[in-house]
């Protein structure tokens, strides 16, 4: 190939990758819905769980504490912050204890008789009015007179106050300066519900930024501090920490690998060429995922690039086998069967995830398989013509020669391998401890101090538990509200018995229309009310005619249509109801949040009588889901393991060669799993993916060692290649293993251990026994 044609090839290649990259970058939608990494639901119950994880009010809720030396400043900031958050659009419900009667819009005032339960127990008759007027007289000479007096002509039964009180949490923190405070009176407390669901990290990030901005704008004292707690705040915190770690690890990795490649090949063009298959792989993988799925998840993106990092190995094998006088195009033909076997078998392993039933893993699978295939093919067909003639030959290295010689001299006790495999299998089979980690939260654990703080705040604020939730399903909003209302007495008696701290249900804010209509029917006609009022006023000192606005309001209420969910738009009730009463495709769902549930069994019994009501234990349910999911993935992996053996068998066509190639990888994975178990590490999905990655690497090493079989020069070149490959991989993953994030650490340690185990075992186990006699 002439230099001109080489140049043309290189330019065409780079231009194609760049063009595809530009298109991908233009069209790529990066998703962040964490549910993509959860299994697709199979049962009604699982569907509910997936809808409620992150969708329920509890997981959207942020608990806020404003602390500072001056409680009054904290209270003022609490009020300003609440107002700013309410108008920001990122939050749909902000509560800080303020209950301002003036904030109830005029349009809802007349509805008070339909919304309040007063008319369920009593009539607006002379007796009741008389008793109420007596109370109002006492109110007028009490210190509460100042703020009650303006309302009395319109509302002598204080219905509005009863409503406002009933909308407050059952157990609320103490009020100071009219806002919630902790018992010590030093921190103003607020609850804010984000519009973004809990499983949407990007939405949570926006909400967190908005919160910070609003706080900066509304603080009245620079010494005030804002603390936010809750699932959303934690996920934002953890994500930021993860990004930070990934960034520095990535930087160190890049420097390390560039140095390694420079030392190994002493050539800048080689370094640059070596990156081309990897970059092509990434762009092709993204294009494939984008075409098939329409979008790519952020986790697929981050994780997928880690997985296809293996593609860096392919050009390394080619480079290490270069020597004077050898055209790379010739050498690649010799390497190709081995390389192709490695690529194909690794792809087969990753294909397992395509059928895992988990959307995110399917994306990951498509990304990795496409990426690795493209890296393999470009290394085979595009790279060789471009590789410059090398003046150096790895086989000339005396160091490598001595190293190979001493390795060849090592004893290879095959029985020991069998014994170790047997011991590991036996240990794992007999250990009573569970092998797997079902708790997803264990992978991105929130620091203990923050969790303790969260549970203290939650208790203080009477905020709902994240774990338990009652879900009501119905064909329409009214049937859901009716069921919610029917559940109230049972729940209330649990609260009385101390089995439940409190609950919140949509019917508390919006009673079903049937109830509203019953109350409306109980409202007296104008004549009847007027005479009842006249009788009640009797000898009281109230001026005659003072309650005319009351008579007018009741009359108006008698002609109101009952309020439905759609009538609440623009009222404070809208925000309360919309988070607990949701319309989904063809049905309605009502959520009852629970606080301080101490007896779930009793609750399950309480709701058992109402059809269409489910008590969800999100923790238990999500753990079950994870277990089911893993079972399915393990089956897929088992099938792909069989396929992998078939691929290797087809390539090598010799049972003993197949055994020698597969032995290091099987043994390494067994030892790693056994060691992890012994160290008390429970395996997660991420360990599983990492083990597949390690197995793929091990297979490559073994294939190449096996390929080099008898030729001493080839053996040294292979040794060179595998050392460079394994060192670079080890560097990347050992650094990842230093991370403080368990999910990164899990992947890092697993793969790093896999690299070491596979490298050593491939050296020891792969060559046929008689190869020793041919060595120098």
């Amino acid at each position, binding site marked *: 190939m002439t230099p001109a044609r080489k140049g043309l090839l290189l330019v065409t290649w780079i231009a194609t990758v760049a063009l595809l990259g530009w298109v991908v970058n233009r069209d790529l939608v990066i998703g962040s819905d964490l549910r993509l990494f959860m299994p697709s639901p199979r049962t009604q119950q699982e569907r509910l769980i997936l809808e409620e994880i992150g969708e329920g009010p509890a997981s959207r809720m942020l608990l806020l504490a404003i602390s500072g030396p001056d409680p009054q400043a904290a*209270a003022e900031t609490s009020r300003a912050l609440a107002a700013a958050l309410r108008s920001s659009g990122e939050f749909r419900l902000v509560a800080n204890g303020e209950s301002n009667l003036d904030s109830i819009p005029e349009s809802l005032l007349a509805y008070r008789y339909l919304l309040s339960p007063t008319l369920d127990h009593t009539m607006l008759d002379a007796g009741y009015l008389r008793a109420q007027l007596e*109370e109002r*007289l*006492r109110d*007028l*000479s*009490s*210190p*509460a*007179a*100042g*703020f009650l*007096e303006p309302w*009395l*002509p319109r509302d002598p039964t204080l219905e509005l106050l009863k409503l406002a009180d009933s909308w407050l949490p059952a157990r609320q923190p*103490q*009020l*100071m*300066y*009219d806002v919630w405070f902790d018992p010590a*009176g030093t921190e103003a407390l607020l609850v804010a519900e984000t519009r973004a669901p809990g499983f949407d990290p990007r939405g949570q990030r926006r909400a967190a930024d908005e919160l910070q901005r609003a706080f900066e704008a509304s603080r009245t004292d620079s010494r005030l501090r804002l603390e936010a707690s809750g699932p959303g705040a934690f996920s934002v915190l953890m994500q930021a920490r993860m990004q930070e770690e990934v960034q520095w690890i990535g930087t160190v990795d890049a420097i390390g690998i560039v140095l390694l490649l420079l030392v190994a090949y002493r050539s800048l063009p080689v370094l640059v060429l070596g990156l081309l298959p990897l970059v092509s792989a990434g762009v092709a993988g993204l294009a494939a995922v984008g075409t098939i799925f329409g979008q790519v998840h952020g986790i697929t993106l981050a994780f997928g690039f880690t997985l296809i990092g293996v593609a860096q190995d392919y050009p390394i094998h080619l480079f290490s086998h270069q020597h004077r006088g050898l055209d790379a195009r010739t050498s690649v033909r010799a390497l190709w069967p081995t390389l192709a076997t490695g690529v194909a078998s690794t792809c087969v392993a990753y294909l397992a995830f395509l059928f895992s039933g988990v959307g995110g893993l399917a994306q990951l699978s498509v990304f990795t398989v496409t990426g690795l295939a493209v890296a393999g093919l470009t290394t085979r067909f595009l790279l060789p013509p471009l590789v410059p003639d090398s003046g150096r030959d790895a086989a000339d290295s005396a160091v490598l020669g001595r190293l190979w010689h001493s390795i060849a001299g090592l004893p290879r006790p095959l029985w020991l391998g069998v014994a170790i495999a047997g011991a590991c299998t036996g240990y794992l089979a007999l250990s009573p401890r569970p092998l797997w980690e079902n708790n997803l939260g264990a992978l991105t654990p929130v620091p203990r101090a923050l969790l303790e703080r969260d549970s203290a705040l939650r208790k203080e604020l009477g905020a709902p538990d994240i774990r338990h939730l009652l879900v009501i399903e119905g064909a329409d909003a009214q049937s859901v509200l009716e069921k919610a209302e029917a559940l109230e007495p049972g729940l209330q008696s649990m609260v009385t018995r101390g089995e439940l701290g409190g609950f919140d249900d949509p019917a508390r804010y919006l009673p079903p229309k049937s109830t509203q209509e019953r109350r409306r029917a109980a409202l007296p006609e104008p004549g009847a009310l007027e005479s009842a009022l006249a009788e009640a006023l009797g000898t009281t*000192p*109230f*001026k*005659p005619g*003072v309650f005319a606005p009351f008579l007018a309001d009741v009359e108006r209420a008698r002609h109101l249509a009952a309020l439905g969910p759609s009538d609440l738009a623009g009222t404070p009730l809208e925000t309360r109801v919309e988070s607990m009463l949701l319309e989904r495709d063809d049905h309605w769902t009502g959520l009852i949040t629970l606080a301080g549930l101490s007896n779930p069994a009793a609750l399950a019994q309480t709701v058992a009588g109402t059809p269409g009501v489910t008590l969800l234990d999100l923790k238990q349910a999500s753990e079950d889901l994870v277990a089911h999911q893993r079972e399915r993935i393990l089956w897929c992996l088992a099938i792909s393991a069989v396929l992998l053996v078939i691929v290797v068998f087809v390539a090598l066509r010799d049972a003993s060669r197949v055994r020698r190639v597969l032995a290091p990888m099987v043994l390494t994975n067994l030892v790693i799993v056994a060691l992890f178990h012994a160290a008390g590490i429970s395996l997660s999905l991420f360990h599983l993916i990492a083990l597949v990655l390690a197995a793929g690497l091990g297979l490559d090493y073994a294939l190449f060692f096996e390929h080099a079989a008898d030729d001493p020069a080839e053996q040294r070149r292979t040794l060179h290649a595998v050392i460079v490959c394994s060192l670079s991989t080890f560097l990347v993953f050992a650094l990842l293993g230093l991370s403080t994030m368990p999910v990164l650490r899990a992947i890092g340690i697993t793969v790093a251990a896999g690299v070491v185990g596979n490298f050593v075992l491939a050296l020891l186990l792969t060559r046929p026994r008689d190869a020793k006699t041919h060595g120098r």
Partner: protein
Amino acid sequence: MIALTLAATPLHAADPDLDTLLARLARPAPDSTSFVEIRYSSLLDKPILVSGHLEHQADGALVRRVESPYQEVTVLQGENVSVERAGSKPRQFSLDRAPELRGTLASFGALLKGDRPMLEQYFAVTVSGSDALWEITLAPRNQKLKRRLSNIVVDGAGDRPRCFTLHEPDGDESLMALGVDGPGDLPAPPERQALEAWCTASTGH
């Protein structure tokens, strides 16, 4: 003794000195005094009267105990107010909700403790009358308080306050006579002018 008193009292009737007055009025907690409160409201065609005891407890809480014609206990502790009436659930609210109450409370507390800075934090204070028969007028400083309260007038004689009168902008009024056991000790019928005259009269106890 008489000579000493004469020497300390300016001969011409200048307004009494606020610091001196406050020092004389201060009462160490715990302390209890009987009261009759008369409330005039635009909603009512005659005033309502309640009587009971005001207590200043050692922990700083102010308790207003209504004993007649019904039982009701109001506790003002820090920023919080709770009103509890026999047979119903306590009503709680904060002083921010009832600015006029914050004013009353501040004036009460300041008088009980002789705390002039606290008084002046909320009110512009003017004193008139003589040492023997004085009147303190408290005009609110901030807008929020002004919307609910025109002023508080405290009338007293010697070292004893007699009446606390709250004037509200809408003409409503609340008058609290201290050291009075029941409505029988007050002019009847309890009309405003008669009561105000009683508060500022030199005779009494």
